[in-house]
């Protein structure tokens, strides 16, 4: 009897995991005992972190996407369809096309969806860079503004100790924005205000979701004339008055509002009824070590869909993927999981248009900030322009 492993999601987590599963289980696959399917609702694979660069006119759409099938090993069956329902108890997927797929093992890597409509007025008056079209729209604004006030804010999920998408991105874009406006020669006429909400995972009234990094930020921002403000949790936006209103009762005017929006899981995950997350955010209850969906031994969750206190970013997937592959192999070969995720995430933060800072952290140790360097910047650019695709192919 052939065992079927299905990976749902054509983002970086799903793509690298499908490729890594073929490597790990090649003996079984070549004997015809195991087959691997990857299901995605898009024929394209997007390098999502590059949307941030689109907002600064530094990346074209054609440069940040590849045909999904071209990134998969030939042993993987690629299915272009959308999951409508996860029937975890029956180990079955119901698809938009009407098809059903039964599985022996499932990897859920369906990402998250930016949802600015969840804050009153934000959809109409706010901007963000977490998707291509909004990032293009933001570029049109910041490349033409001559004077005024750019207000930057961050929205965290309501689920306790769960981060927003890519924790470092708001800080990165603030520093890039400062440099971008200086190059345009309009920085003196534009006020940049960086704000952070009162509750950000386990820290309170800080400028970043990890205390040590939050403590070095004021001097970095001061040196660039960036105004910084704690405890501004966006409650609503008045598009007519161009005012952001906080839960703390303050009002701030803006000419451009760059707000990291609320996020939620995809519809099929929300509809599964398994999530216990508040505010209908849909994060799946995930074992922090084995990465199994709680109550379902044959289902694994990774990337943005988990309810763990770990960055919703590709750097998390990169470390979760080998754990999941090892655990599926362990269950198939030895009847038990063998690997544990330690919460490791690594990345190179873009600390300006040309400099970068390599960073890493895990469940126990936070990021230790280091000075940004040009070599760090080259590492990040090299990753953006080439190494990423090797990561997706499971080569790095």
């Amino acid at each position: 009897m052939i065992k079927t492993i299905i990976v749902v999601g054509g983002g970086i987590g799903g793509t690298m995991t499908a490729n890594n599963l073929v490597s790990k289980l090649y003996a079984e696959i070549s004997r015809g005992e195991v087959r691997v399917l990857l299901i995605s609702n898009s024929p394209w694979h997007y390098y999502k972190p590059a949307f941030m660069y689109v907002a600064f006119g530094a990346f074209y759409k054609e440069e940040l996407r590849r045909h999904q099938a071209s990134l998969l090993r030939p042993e993987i069956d690629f299915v272009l369809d959308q999951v409508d329902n996860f029937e975890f108890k029956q180990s079955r997927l119901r698809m938009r096309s009407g098809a059903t797929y039964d599985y022996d093992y499932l990897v859920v890597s369906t990402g998250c969806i930016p949802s600015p409509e969840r804050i009153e007025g934000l959809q109409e008056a706010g901007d963000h860079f977490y998707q291509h079209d909004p990032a293009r729209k933001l570029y049109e604004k910041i490349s033409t503004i001559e004077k005024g006030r750019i207000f930057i804010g961050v929205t965290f999920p309501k689920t306790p100790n769960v981060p927003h998408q890519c924790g470092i991105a708001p800080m990165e874009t603030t520093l890039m924005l400062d440099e971008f406006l200086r190059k345009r020669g309009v920085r003196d006429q534009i006020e940049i205000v960086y704000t952070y909400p009162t509750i950000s995972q386990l820290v309170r009234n800080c400028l970043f979701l990890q205390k040590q990094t939050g403590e070095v930020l004021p001097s970095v921002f001061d040196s660039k004339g960036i105004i910084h403000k704690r405890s501004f949790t966006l409650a609503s936006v008045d598009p007519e008055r161009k005012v952001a209103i906080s839960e703390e009762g303050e009002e701030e005017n803006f000419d451009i509002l760059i707000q990291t929006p609320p996020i939620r899981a995809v519809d099929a995950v929300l509809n599964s009824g398994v999530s216990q997350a508040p505010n209908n955010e849909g994060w799946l209850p995930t074992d922090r070590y084995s990465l199994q969906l709680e109550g379902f031994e044959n289902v694994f969750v990774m990337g943005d869909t988990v309810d763990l206190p770990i960055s919703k970013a590709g750097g998390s997937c990169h470390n979760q993927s080998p754990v999941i592959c090892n655990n599926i192999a362990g269950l198939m070969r030895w009847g038990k999981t063998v690997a544990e995720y330690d919460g490791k995430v690594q990345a190179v933060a873009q600390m300006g248009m040309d400099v970068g800072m390599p960073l890493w952290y895990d469940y126990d140790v936070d990021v230790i900030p280091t000075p940004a360097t040009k070599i760090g910047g080259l590492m990040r650019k090299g990753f953006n322009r080439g190494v990423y695709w090797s990561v997706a192919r499971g080569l790095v």
Partner: protein
Amino acid sequence: MTHQNPETSTQTLEQLLECLPALKNEATQAGLADLLDKLAPLLQGRRLHNIVDLLAATSDVIEMTDDAMLQKLMALYEESIGGVWMLTNALRYASAQAAANSTPPTLWQSVKKFNQNEDARRGLDVVSNILAELGRQSAIKGQKMPED
């Protein structure tokens, strides 16, 4: 150019070192002493200069690398890695399929398979196009060029 008294300059160096708290640490001093032992022959033979020159050249390359150069280098990287990956995938997958048959197909069966399999025909077309392109480039190389 002025020459300082060696005694004065040593004293100045000592004063400078006194200002660095890290150098008052015993482990740091022991580590530095070990390092100096290793470096001494390189310094004496002027061979450390090459390492410094190498560092300077590396640093120059980093300074000179701009967005355009980096994009070209990474495109080369991706095309190379992606190309090798595609070819090795095809080779491994095709070998595994061939090995799965206990008896290889007859020539007639192979031809029939070619005829029925669109991907196989397309693959043959790719090979044919590659050969045509190689031929075109060979023809260019073989052309007699007029003198300027």
